[in-house]
């Protein structure tokens, strides 16, 4: 692997520092919510993690489109990087949501439209890696992967919009007002600071991990090429 660019090193350090500040804001700066208590603080990492997850799935679909147009392997590497990172963040979002739900909804899990679509989205992208693992030819693997991410990306806007379109108990904190939702709260000044800083921090972390993962993908491609050269 080539030496790390200075910009990436700066981004690595900035990500760690921003995460430390975001954690401080979420745990200590933001006021305690009166009805839910301390568990509401999970929200400051739950929403940004879900945001980054959906962002990556959309980014993967865009990379998939570019690959189908150009047939350049680098777009396949970019696509796979986006899916992998988003899968991790989306999994974290689902688990954090479940932990929040236990004291608020009195259950770890319920087949609410939002939870169901989120689980389906996660499973779709787990299957993406299973599909890739089953194809040996790199061109075919990249082509199938690109089409799959394109189709899979439909689940991202559905998951985002489902709480605004269907009757659900999942709270819509931003621009929401469903009377059926349980756990809705109005964000005060301190809460908004922690929330928006969290969104910004997770976006920076996503960019940092994305860049690092693309470099790892490039290295893997080089190793694969070297192996082919030696065996042939």
């Amino acid at each position, binding site marked *: 692997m080539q030496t790390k660019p200075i910009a990436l090193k700066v981004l690595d350090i900035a990500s760690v520092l921003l995460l430390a500040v975001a954690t401080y804001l979420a745990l200590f700066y933001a006021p305690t919510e009166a*009805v839910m208590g301390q568990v509401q603080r999970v929200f400051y990492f*739950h929403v940004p993690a879900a945001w980054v997850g959906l962002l990556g799935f959309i980014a993967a679909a865009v990379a998939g489109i570019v690959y189908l147009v150009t047939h350049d392997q680098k777009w396949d590497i970019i696509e796979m990087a986006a899916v992998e990172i988003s899968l991790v963040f989306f999994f974290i979002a689902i*688990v954090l949501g479940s932990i929040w739900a236990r004291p608020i909804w009195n259950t770890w899990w319920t087949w609410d439209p939002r939870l169901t679509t989120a689980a389906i989205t996660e499973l779709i992208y787990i299957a993406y890696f299973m599909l890739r693992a089953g194809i040996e030819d790199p061109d075919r693997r990249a082509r199938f992967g690109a089409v799959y991410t394109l189709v899979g990306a439909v689940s991202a806007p559905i998951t985002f919009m489902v709480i605004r379109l269907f009757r659900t108990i999942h709270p819509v904190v931003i621009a929401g007002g469903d009377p059926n939702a349980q756990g809705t709260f109005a964000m005060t000044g301190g809460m908004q600071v922690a929330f928006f800083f969290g969104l910004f921090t997770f976006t920076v972390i996503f960019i940092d991990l994305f860049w690092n993962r693309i470099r790892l993908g490039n290295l893997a491609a080089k190793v694969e090429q070297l192996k082919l050269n030696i065996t042939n």
Partner: protein
Amino acid sequence: MFFQDTTPDTSSYMILGYAVFFIATTIYLISFFVRSRNLRQDMSMLESMKPESKVMESKATAGKMTAGKPAKAKTSKPKASASKTKKKK
């Protein structure tokens, strides 16, 4: 929920949530570094094999070329050793 007088103590769930976040992130980062290290090791090993394979290829081609004249290939080595002994003296 609607008629509660005091804020419930849900701090254990909050701690669990943040613990899950940091543990999951750490596991992902560790897997990232392990994969990166393994690939770097593979890369260096394959690069070290690359010149060897080239040498082997050149030896094989040289073998093919001198297949009819084995004496020449053998005579080249003693010459080199003779020059070394001269240098030592």
